[in-house]
């Protein structure tokens, strides 16, 4: 079953500022081709990155923004080649630092739509610090984290999202690290928009990207992405027609959380309820508890506890089960808006010619004159 997120098209909430409201728009019709650069795409055949690139190229025209006002920033890794293939402004930077560079861009310019493309190694290993601080500050940018649970560009070492015990070139006896759950991490860093989607589900991917772009603040989107060379099949359970109904727990704001094989009503036979024993959530058969007892997903809940509890349903080992959709979207002041507001108010308080004000500044303090 494909989760339906159409209700999210209305996001942000009425009265909320949009993530792109200060970015100039165009009346000229755009197509995916307008956003396609002249560079040959050089990912491995079958790489999930192609699907995401196509989805982004297909979705950007819908935003209606001027192409020159869109900036993609990436770090290092397979996914970080992304900006080269989009005909916007872009920077392919250094390992893990894209969120910091994007913070500078977004703070310096309110009229840009700023995107970060990163991977599980780039964002969660070498760049973990920048990621959590971008989320904490809530800088107006959209972070797309391509999670293939492996290091691709360095040819197959385990990543901070690989399941423990993974046999790789650098861990012949199995990896010892416990993996990060990127959504849990983002919620822990108080991300104001936290979502997860899948490379192969274009419709869902596009709906999440739309909501992410519309959100003002740091939008964090984890994209499950298959690496056919070094970690093929990592997401088979949630992609296979035979298993995905049980593997994907779709999150739709305002709807009871249900999944699994449909019951007589045509809806998923399984669902989530609160677990009074742990304070978390647990999976139940809807038939056992009744639909009224099911947890209704509230992405706008200011308290992230329930979203975090839902995020814990993700397998940390081989992925047989994972919630997909928008876990959280709440309003919170953004760092860049605040920084610009401080500049504006300081300017209003000190109007006048900058050269004269500079003369006043450097000539201030205790002075004396020699004639």
């Amino acid at each position, binding site marked *: 079953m494909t989760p339906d997120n159409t209700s999210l098209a209305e996001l942000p909430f009425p009265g909320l500022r949009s993530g792109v409201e200060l970015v*100039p728009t165009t009346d000229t019709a755009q197509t995916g081709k307008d956003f396609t*650069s002249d*560079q040959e795409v050089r990912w491995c055949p079958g790489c999930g990155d192609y699907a995401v690139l196509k989805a982004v190229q297909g979705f950007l025209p819908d935003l209606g923004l*001027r*192409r*020159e*006002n869109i*900036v993609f*920033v990436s770090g*290092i890794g397979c996914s970080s080649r992304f*900006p*080269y293939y*989009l*005909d*916007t*402004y*872009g*920077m*392919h*930077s*250094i*390992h893990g*630092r894209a*969120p*910091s*560079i*994007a*913070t*500078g*861009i*977004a*703070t*310096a*310019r309110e*009229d*840009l739509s700023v995107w970060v493309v990163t991977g599980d190694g780039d964002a969660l290993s070498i760049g973990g*610090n*920048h990621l959590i*601080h971008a989320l904490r500050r809530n800088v107006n940018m959209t972070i797309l984290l391509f999670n293939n649970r492996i290091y691709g560009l360095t040819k197959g070492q385990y990543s901070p999202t690989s399941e423990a015990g993974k046999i790789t070139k650098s861990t012949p006896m199995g990896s010892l690290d416990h993996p990060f759950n990127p959504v849990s991490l983002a919620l822990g860093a108080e991300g104001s928009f936290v979502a997860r989607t899948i490379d192969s589900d274009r419709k869902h991917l596009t709906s999440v990207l739309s909501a992410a772009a519309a959100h003002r603040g740091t939008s964090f989107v984890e994209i499950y992405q298959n690496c056919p060379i070094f970690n093929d099949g990592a997401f088979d359970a949630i992609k296979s027609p035979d298993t995905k109904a049980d593997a994907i727990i779709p999150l739709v704001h305002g709807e009871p959380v249900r999944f699994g094989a449909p019951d007589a009503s045509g809806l998923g036979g399984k669902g989530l309820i609160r677990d009074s024993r742990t304070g978390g959530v647990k999976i139940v058969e809807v038939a056992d508890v009744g639909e009224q007892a099911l947890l209704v997903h509230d992405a706008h809940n200011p308290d992230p506890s329930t979203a975090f509890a839902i995020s814990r349903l993700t397998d940390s080992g081989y992925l047989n089960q994972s919630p997909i959709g928008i876990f959280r979207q709440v309003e919170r002041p953004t760092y860049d808006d605040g*920084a610009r507001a*401080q*500049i504006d108010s*300081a*300017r209003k308080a000190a109007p006048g010619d*900058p*050269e*004269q*004000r*500079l*003369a006043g*500044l*450097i*000539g*201030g*303090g*205790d*002075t*004396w*004159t*020699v004639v």
Partner: protein
Amino acid sequence: MVSKQVKQLDRVIIRFAGDSGDGMQLTGDRFTQESAAFGNDLSTLPNFPAEIRAPQGTLPGVSSFQVHFADHDILTPGDAPDVLVAMNPAALRANLSDLPKGATIIVDTHDFTARNLTKAGYAANPLEDNSLGDYALHTVDLTGLTVAAVKEFGLSRKDAARAKNMFALGLLSWMYGRPVESTISFLERRFAKVADIRDANITAFKSGWNFGETTEAFAVSYEIKPAPMAAGTYRNITGNLALSYGLVASGVRSGLPIFLGSYPITPASDILHELSKHKAFGVTTFQAEDEIAGIGAAIGASFAGSLGVTTTSGPGIALKSEAIGLAVMTELPLLVVDVQRGGPSTGLPTKTEQADLLQAMFGRNGEAPVPIVAPQSPGDCFDAALDAARIAVTYRTPVMLLSDGYLANGSEPWRIPEVDQLPTIDPDFATATNHVSKKSEDGEPDEFWPYLRDEETLARPWAVPGTPGLEHRIGGLEKGDGHGNISYDPANHDLMVRTRQAKVDRIADALPPLEVDDPSGRAKVLVLGWGSTYGPIGAGVRRVRKAGYHVAQAHLRHLNPFPKDLGEILERYDKVLVPEMNLGQLSMLLRAKYLVDAVGYNHVRGLPLKAAELAEAIGELVAQAEGVDVDLTAPAEEAIS
């Protein structure tokens, strides 16, 4: 009232020393401001521990502030204090070895208790065992006098005693005829919200003055006439403040918003603090999560059309190295300010050193040339910042601005420049396509090549997001010449490496000739320095000349590239002495580039070089070069300045 004698002096060096919490930095700073307002030339040297409050009364907790003021042009804070004000036994013990015989010592006897003497490592009270017989010792119960003077304000004994630094300042202000108005108005401003503290401090200050004037213990006061200075309006300024103003001025004179991405680190943090006050000039300050994020955000801001700046000290540069390489590769304007401190590793956070030159020069992977600019005095930090900004914007390159802990916290009178006389900086943003593609039908440029260079400067166009038709991608991977797309072609890489180097080399085309100070024209020895050693070198050179010998002096503002005439200048002299606060880093560069047998003079004591010792080293080299005996002791003591 006792009749008091007034003696004329041409210069005095005073060191205020006390516990970290005794307010010695403030005391020294106020005395400096009074001296500046009076019209003396001056130079200051704050010296304090890295610990915010080291254990009270101990040697590591001693904080001091030295001020050198004179009726003539001086260059350094002075080698040895004429007067030491010691607020406790530790302050006396920590500073005594720096005093020449005959120096004046004023001690606060209140803290000379058995316990404090033991803490400072004294077996016996030095005030009583005649061990200070070589000095003019004044023992005064500064604390007791202060507490008595401010009794009427009803403060706790502890709070009352805290005003003792103002009592000491008042006494010294009387001794040297300092004007007191600026300190009184300063105290009124500083403690505007706490009336009793304000009144106690002002009263303590005035009481100190009156004590000097009335007590028989101080029979003499001194007069140091104002120094002749070029006409203009002056203020006293520290290097960090001047550098901050230079950055603000760079924004105003280029029309670019300034974006500072920084992480707090001693001794650079004051630049972050200062710039955060100047948002009205369009200055954004971003306190990042770490050093790397600081420079990352600055690079992002530069890409977006601001002038990105990052400020740090040596350990921060180490962390930023990879990002500096990114700025080299993406050829974006960026200022990297390194306020050097003692190293390696955490080193001496509050002490000065010049040992980051080679890090600035080479501390990156690959061939990654970065222009280097170094200010020579606190006030010069203003001009150096503007110069660095000009190079960064004109050549689209990161520029390293190498200040140091002495320049950062030291101060000197600074003639305030006229804003319209400051250099202008043209961002020269790209606004149109610059290359004719195969698809062009009319032969007009129809595409944008981000690496198509200016023929003169080799700078690439700076096209900022929001400019239609110039969408492009840059990054850390090697790019093809001109079009800038990823290229792994061997010949192209060789070309691009050489081109990036050639661009930095071309900065020298626009540099003025190196100024050589060789008044007699007969010198065989050249003393060549860079950065904050300018003062000690100048003072050392003066001393040698005053003794009748010939020596030339030149000082480098640009360390990369060197001025074009440097090689030719070096060839003119038989001997080249290179004084540095490192183990010979400029010497190594000069030897490598010019095959010159540069002689190093190197100290890494965390303090500025001492002019008198340096003069001896210059003298020895003059003796070798000219085959004569050199005796510097002949001239009068006042030659050392």
